[in-house]
């Protein structure tokens, strides 16, 4: 089925949730409201002539610097593909600015578990009903969500884990561990990066 046709079916089935469609290079994205995301994805997965049974990717997008003013602050993008029927569609669920959250789809695809954790970790969108919503790529005590546009490319200070580690090394050094010896290899103090 053509992506546009799928989008039309979706509009007919969920008229209240449907907001818009966008097509670029033959790929169609449907922009929807986030409220009934699980129902929509379940419908897409289980309807007989759609059977979009493969969740290709799930990611968050920060739209704050997009030129289009109509877009909401955050979006969660689901790329779906039907392995038996070989068609695809992209679902873009709008997520608000303050405390962005959307329902988790782990119940539909258990593989979404880590994808949602990653989105939470890097974009700060939380997922309601997720079984284990923790950071996955960054340390547990990391501050901020790096893929948000306001997050700087280069931070001012080091991650606390590293500073703690350095302190620990200093503490160990006091127990007779010679810092100028083999612990720091060949690096003499005067050879450090200028």
């Amino acid at each position: 089925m053509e992506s546009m046709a799928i989008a039309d079916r979706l509009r007919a089935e969920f008229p209240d949730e449907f907001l818009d469609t966008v097509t670029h290079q033959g790929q169609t994205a449907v922009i929807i409201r986030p409220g009934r995301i699980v129902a929509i994805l379940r419908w897409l997965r289980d309807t007989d002539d759609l059977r979009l049974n493969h969740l290709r990717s799930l990611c968050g997008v920060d739209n704050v610097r997009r030129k289009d003013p109509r877009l909401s602050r955050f979006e969660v993008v689901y790329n779906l593909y039907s392995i038996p029927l070989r068609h695809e569609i992209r679902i873009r669920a709008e997520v608000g600015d303050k405390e962005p959250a959307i329902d988790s789809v782990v119940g539909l695809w258990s593989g979404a578990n880590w994808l949602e954790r990653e989105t939470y970790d890097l974009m700060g969108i939380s997922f309601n009903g997720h079984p284990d919503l923790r950071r996955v790529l960054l340390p547990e005590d990391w501050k901020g969500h790096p893929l948000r546009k306001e997050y700087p490319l280069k931070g001012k200070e080091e991650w606390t884990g590293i500073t703690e580690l350095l302190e620990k090394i200093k503490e160990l050094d006091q127990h007779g561990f010679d810092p100028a010896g083999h612990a720091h290899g060949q690096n003499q103090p005067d050879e450090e990066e200028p």
Partner: protein
Amino acid sequence: MTPPLKQTLEIPVADGEAERYSLRMGPQHPATHGVLRVDLELDGETIIECKPQVGYLHRGFEKLAENRTYSQALILTDRLDYIAAMANNVGYCLAVEKLLAISVPLRAQYIRTLVCEMSRLCSHLLWLATHALDIGAMTVFLYCFREREILLDLFEELCGARLTFSYPRIGGVRQDVTSYFIDELQRFLDIFPSRIAEYETLIDTNRIWLKRTVGVGVVSGDQALALGLTGACLRGSGVDYDLRKHQPYDAYDQVEFEVPLGSDGDIYARYRCRMEEMHQSVHIIQQCIDQLPPGPIIGLDAPDLVMPNKVPARIEAGSSTYGTGLIRLIRDRDLYLSGDIYVATEVPKGELGFYFISDGNNRPYRMHIRSPSFIHIGALATIAKGEMLADLIANIGSLDVVLGESDR
């Protein structure tokens, strides 16, 4: 974060309930294929709970790419799956080409298909090597490296690097193939099937290998789909999903090959799938060599390597490094298209997808990488549960994960 200095081993005490023994495998462990950490709860040697932890190699590629031009971000993909960097490069270029509507000449498409399959061989050889080593057959490891070395030498001949190729270019490839390269490759293809037979002599019907792999790490087809497994892990469970057939890219629709499918979904099925894929790759490379058409290797509308956002008049009038395409684009006043695209390719590990959002800039507004290894590691918890410690190692090897790709 750092564990307390004073730490004693809790010897489990029998108290009627299951005795739990927690074991933290990795990130420095010989069999975790990089810096994967797996927190285990064991009952004897049976895994009650398995929690994989990744992120030790996180380099923020998605953030970095937002601050680089499309051609600069290409080199980041080398470092995703550093075992099959060429496949990542090609996947990235395809996505950018589709996003910005850039065409690729036929010869370049064939060359890309060829190097992709070489890359698949490289990756599968390394997978077999480490997988066999994990299960204890260490000679296979070195036999695989013997062949992989030939491939790496060929890559060096082609593009001057052995691991981080940066060989494809948005709109084509960087260098044409030489007759020397083709001859060497042909020689390799002639000997390689006999070398595969050699690996199979060592392990394929070996009773210990069979005991370690048959019926271990079983994933049913539906379960594999739900877990998001792709590549040989999905096909081993009997789901026919290969992007080279489903959404053919480059010259894959011009060559004949078959997609090996398993049915049992265990480690042995995945192993057989990948071994068959190696045979198919040889077949594809042979066809690419035979059908290689003449022509340009980079398209006329390929962007300049520097990818300027604003084009100074000087370049507009004169020539760019490559092609005359840039001049045409400037006349159109539409340097880079805006929109979003998801393009996936079948890399050796599975489905590598790039989701791009372009804002009409020379830099991607957002690049999301769907990395198969990340999802496969996520699935490890489900697969390894209830099996034994030694099976966990076999499972990690069989899922074929690369931490560079998983952590990005």
